[in-house]
């Protein structure tokens, strides 16, 4: 992918006019994130570190206590690496970075986002492995990493994400087997019964009963050529085929 534009964005700092005020650590983290990026559409132009907090920056949403809860940068034509600083946004609920040109690895620091509900990194150029630290994201409901170049196996630790509802790893380069515990079987066995698992290629359907309801969850692992089917517990190690 092209890194033609070397116009590295940096946060505005009106040194001559309004001097930088007492710093805000979330604003600093976002500016560090921005400093690695090329932003030809000037989506991040309003990110001005001389302001007392980032809550008036476009595409940043804060709660009533001026803490960042959403980052809505989908579809913005941004290029660059993600970097570790995003992990400092302890109140971040929605990380929406889909449909850009983010490159490099998924930073393990993203595992520190303890309030995160939605991680949408799909349709980028991300590579490397899925960090095990993402298993710390206890509030996570939506994880969409599809359509990247992610390699390696699916970390077993991700079965700890008990709130996970939608998981999409399709169209990557994953290997090994698909976990079947935790949310990957989705519910603790004493409350729910797994009726059937259907696979077509590497697409897996899990159908459950929950009392009188029947629920369908689709965990998509489509188009991961080296990904084998659901793990056969005890018979093959999870990184079989990697």
């Amino acid at each position: 992918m092209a890194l033609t534009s070397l116009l590295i964005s940096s946060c505005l700092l009106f040194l001559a006019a309004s001097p930088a005020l007492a710093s805000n650590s979330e604003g600093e983290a976002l500016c560090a994130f921005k400093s690695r990026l090329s932003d030809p559409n000037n989506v991040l132009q309003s990110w001005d570190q001389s302001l007392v907090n980032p809550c008036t920056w476009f595409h940043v949403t804060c709660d009533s206590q001026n803490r960042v809860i959403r980052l809505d940068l989908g579809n913005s034509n941004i290029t660059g690496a993600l970097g570790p600083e995003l992990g400092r946004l302890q109140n971040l609920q929605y990380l929406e970075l889909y449909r850009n040109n983010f490159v490099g690895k998924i930073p393990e620091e993203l595992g520190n986002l303890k309030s995160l509900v939605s991680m949408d990194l799909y349709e980028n150029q991300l590579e490397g492995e899925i960090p095990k630290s993402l298993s710390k994201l206890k509030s996570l409901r939506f994880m969409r990493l599809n359509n990247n170049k992610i390699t390696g196996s699916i970390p077993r630790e991700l079965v700890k994400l008990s709130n996970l509802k939608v998981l999409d790893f399709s169209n990557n380069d994953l290997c090994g087997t698909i976990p079947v515990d935790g949310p990957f079987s989705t519910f603790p066995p004493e409350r729910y019964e797994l009726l059937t698992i259907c696979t077509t290629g590497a697409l897996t359907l899990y159908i459950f009963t929950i009392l009188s309801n029947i629920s369908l969850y689709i965990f998509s692992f489509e188009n991961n050529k080296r990904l084998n089917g659901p793990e056969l517990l005890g018979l093959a190690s999870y990184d079989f085929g990697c």
Partner: protein
Amino acid sequence: MSFLLLILFTLIVATSEETEAEALLKWKSSLYQSGSLASWGIRNGTSPCSWYGISCDPAGNVGDLSELVYLSLFKNNLVGPVPSQLSRLSKVRHFDLGHNHFNNTEYSNFSAMPSVLYLSLFLNNLTGVFPQFILKCTNLTYLDLSQNAFSGPITDSLANLSKLTELYLDSNNLIGGIPSVLGSISGLRILILGDNSLGGPLPSSLSQLKFLERLDIISAGINSTIPPELGACTNLNYINLSSNQLSGPLPFTFVNLTKMREFDISSNNLSGEIPGEFFKSWPELIVFKVQNNSLTGRIPPDIGLAKKLTVLWHLPDSLSQLPNLSFFSILSTNLTGMIPPDFGRNGMLQFVHLGSNPFFGELPQGLCTGLALIEITVNMNNFSGTLPSCLKDCSALSRVRFEYNYFIGNISEAFGVHPNLNYFDLTGNSFTGKLSGDWGQCSSLELFHIDGNNISGEIPATFCKITSLKDLSLASNLLTGAIPMELGNLSSLFKLNLSDNFLSSQIPSNLGSLTKLQRLDLSRNKLSGNIPSELGNLDHLILFDLSQNNISGKIPNNLGNLLTMQILLDLSRNSLAGPIPSDLGKLIQLETLNLSHNFLTDQIPKSLSSMLSLESVDFSNNNLSGPVPTGKAFKDDSPQAYVGNPDLCGDFSRVKSLVMQIPLRIHIAIEKR
């Protein structure tokens, strides 16, 4: 009138002829009111031991007072001189005659009181020079002569009281300066000398008082600089030197006074800058008063670091006289007060940042004298009144934040043409008037919010020339008329909120040109006509709310193309008819779907089961029929999500087929409809 006496007034010294009871009764008869002493009488026996307020020793004597250790006559109405016999109480440790009307006392007959630790003559009418006998009470730790009319100097011999920890001499007529020997009373913790005519300098010897916690010398005519050596008194948490003639700078050494809680040097002649480092170094600071001095420079932005600051502080009037003041910033404190009316008169103000404080009153009319204002952010205060009239001519204005105050006035008259204006937020005030067409000339404007005011009239088409506009919110006003189709020219717009107004007529199809739009909220208006299918081109939308209008026709199929829809799709409370398009099932990121209170017919499409991110749905009050789709969001919602539909029911066919195949624990709940 308190008669809670633990002991007797020693004028009642029983002579050898009188019994103790007779002496007590003689005293009682001299009192104005003695109702509490009704039990005192010979008829109750000659022993006063059972009388109210009397305790006897084991021998049955009220006793002489030679063993007395504690004497308090505090807060009575005793008049006349303090009897010198009182000083013969050689064992007394606590001696409090405060809050009476003692006067005309001759101290030369007083003995030294060798045991006394606590001595208070506070709040009487005592006169004369400093009582010499006190200087011989060398065990004194607490001495309070305040609020009398003592005159003459504070004697140097006060240093004999080497064990003093608390010294109160305030509110007298003392003269002759602050003796520097006070610095040798090494255990002194509290030193209160104000409201005298002391004059003279503030001695640097006070820096020897390593345990000093409170230094209060208000209004004493002190005339000197503040000795920087005082920065060595690191236990100081209270300094009040207000209303003197102190001059020179605030000593930088005060950064060492890390326990500082209340700091008041107001009303002096201090000059120089306020060191911003104070606020970093004083984490316990609650009160900071520096007004009425000749302090220069800018109020340090670091004042925002003093998180406990809660003082009632009027901004220094001297601010108005600072000839070069161009930058002024106080953010997110608990400071309150009004902006001085002359503020800005120097004509140099460019940056005024007063966000998130409880400041009140009006903005001074002269604030923008000189028309140099570039940024004015006064959001989240309690400001009221109209805006300064010079604002409309401030052609350099770039950033304006007035949100969440109590401002009034007509905004078209308050503002004019501002070619550099980038950020403009008036949310949450009581502004009136109409949107001027002049806004169209603000060619740099990126954010324009006037939510929650009383703006009326229509949205002028010229408004829509602001092609730089990215975030437009006119919500919760009284706007009428149609949404101008020219809004579709605002190609940079990513947020558009026109909700909660009285806008009517159709949604212009041009809005479909706003391809960068992420949030579109037209809810709570009187819009009519169809949902233009062009809105299906808004493929960056994450929120779409048309609820509470009079929109009719069908839901366009191509709303299913809005694949990024995430936060909300709300078409509720309209007059939509026809089926729910099955393409809506493509909205797999959508978390909340509300189609309630319409006239939608047919079945809920099965494809909606693939909307895996749905947390909440509402189909109630339509004409829907058929089965409810599968999927957690469709089943786990309360029945309220489906009420008001004549023919909806659950789907039991799959349950039935599976029952045949596998032993299941299935509980079937049948609801009576």
